[in-house]
């Protein structure tokens, strides 16, 4: 793990891994969406509306997965002081928030024809909205912490760990409390969803996840470049004085 602690070594890997993730992700996501939109069957009760599934579910997975990644990176930063952990967590915040927002918007568009309402304050929808606000809070904190000198502040990492409490709440909200949102269709080892829906959905999830990984690597490179540029400016200012 600490082999990647050296930013130069990380950048060497990220330089070829990032485009690889992006291209394979876009190919898989496009193929699975075409499959889902044009070739997968309509659902027995919901009909054609079910096709929004292929965007809604991967977005939900990445919104929640993004915060899980922030929590793991925050723990790594707090305990092992890994130099790239804080940067990785910062890099996840924006794509995580975007996918959470996509999940909420597609869910709302789906809810109108399926349930008969755009929005209800049930456990699942409310906890997912809370996740979006947590992302906003995290992004603001990380921005403020990076402005204050060398990014030595541990406040975003502490916030990242505290916010992780919401992730199991989102997952179990439909099991603990009566909710309008359906319980999970897919759990480890079994699926209440026919294979016709499951296969394009899993491919879409892998595709969007690869894109997510590519965006995170690109943002990590950008943040590292910013830090380098700032350090160079500071050295120049020091030499001139």
């Amino acid at each position, binding site marked *: 793990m600490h082999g990647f602690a050296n930013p130069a070594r990380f950048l060497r890997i990220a330089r070829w891994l990032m485009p690889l993730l992006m291209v394979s992700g876009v190919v898989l996501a496009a193929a699975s969406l075409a499959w889902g939109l044009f070739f997968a069957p309509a*659902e027995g009760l919901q009909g054609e509306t079910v096709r929004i599934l292929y965007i809604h579910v991967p977005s939900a997975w990445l919104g929640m997965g993004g915060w899980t990644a922030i929590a793991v990176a925050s723990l790594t930063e707090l305990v092992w002081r890994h130099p790239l952990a804080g940067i990785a967590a910062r890099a996840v915040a924006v794509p995580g928030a975007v996918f959470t927002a996509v999940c909420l918007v597609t869910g709302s568009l789906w809810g109108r024809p399926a349930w008969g309402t755009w929005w209800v304050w049930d456990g699942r929808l409310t906890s997912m909205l809370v996740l979006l606000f947590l992302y906003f809070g995290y992004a603001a904190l990380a921005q403020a912490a990076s402005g204050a000198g060398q990014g030595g502040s541990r406040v975003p990492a502490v916030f990242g760990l505290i916010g992780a*409490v919401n992730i199991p709440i989102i997952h179990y909200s439909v099991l603990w409390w009566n909710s309008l949102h359906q319980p999970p269709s897919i759990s480890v080892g079994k699926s209440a969803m026919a294979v016709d829906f499951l296969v394009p959905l899993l491919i879409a999830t892998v595709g969007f996840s690869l894109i997510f990984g590519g965006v995170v690597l690109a943002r990590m490179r950008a943040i590292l470049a910013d830090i380098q540029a700032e350090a160079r400016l500071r050295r120049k200012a020091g030499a001139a004085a």
Partner: protein
Amino acid sequence: MTNPAASKGAAGIKAKHQRLVLVAIALVALIGAALLAIWGLRSQASYFYVPSDILAARPDPDRGVRLGGMVEKGSLKTEPDGVTIAFVVHDGKARVPVKFKGIVPSLFVEGSGVVAEGKLAADGTFVADNLLAKHDEKYVPREMKEMTEAQAKQVVAETQ
């Protein structure tokens, strides 16, 4: 005068292990607080009552509540006025008759889930002023849905 054993013990714990223990303690406290909050919210966080809840603790006739459950098969009827529908919501343990006048969501069918917003009248009928359809976790292709169980099994066997 320092105690050599104690100072050796303190130095023996690596800084990162100390941080790990601190973070672990903080996380345990945090998860405990969250579990307490969830336990405290267990009734308030539910979006609707199921029939057995609502019959066990009947709400006042003028209090708006939500009733959720399955629409009993064969119970859906249209009243003579042509716009009012009547059906029974059940949760496997209890049943509540519901009346609703208005447009139903397209997924509202017998044998599927429903959430009715309205009031429980004194005579035990739930008078709904809004209906929401609740889809379950099962996703079945439309073609398979129209087949009988045996036909579907045959198709699955043939394609495997």
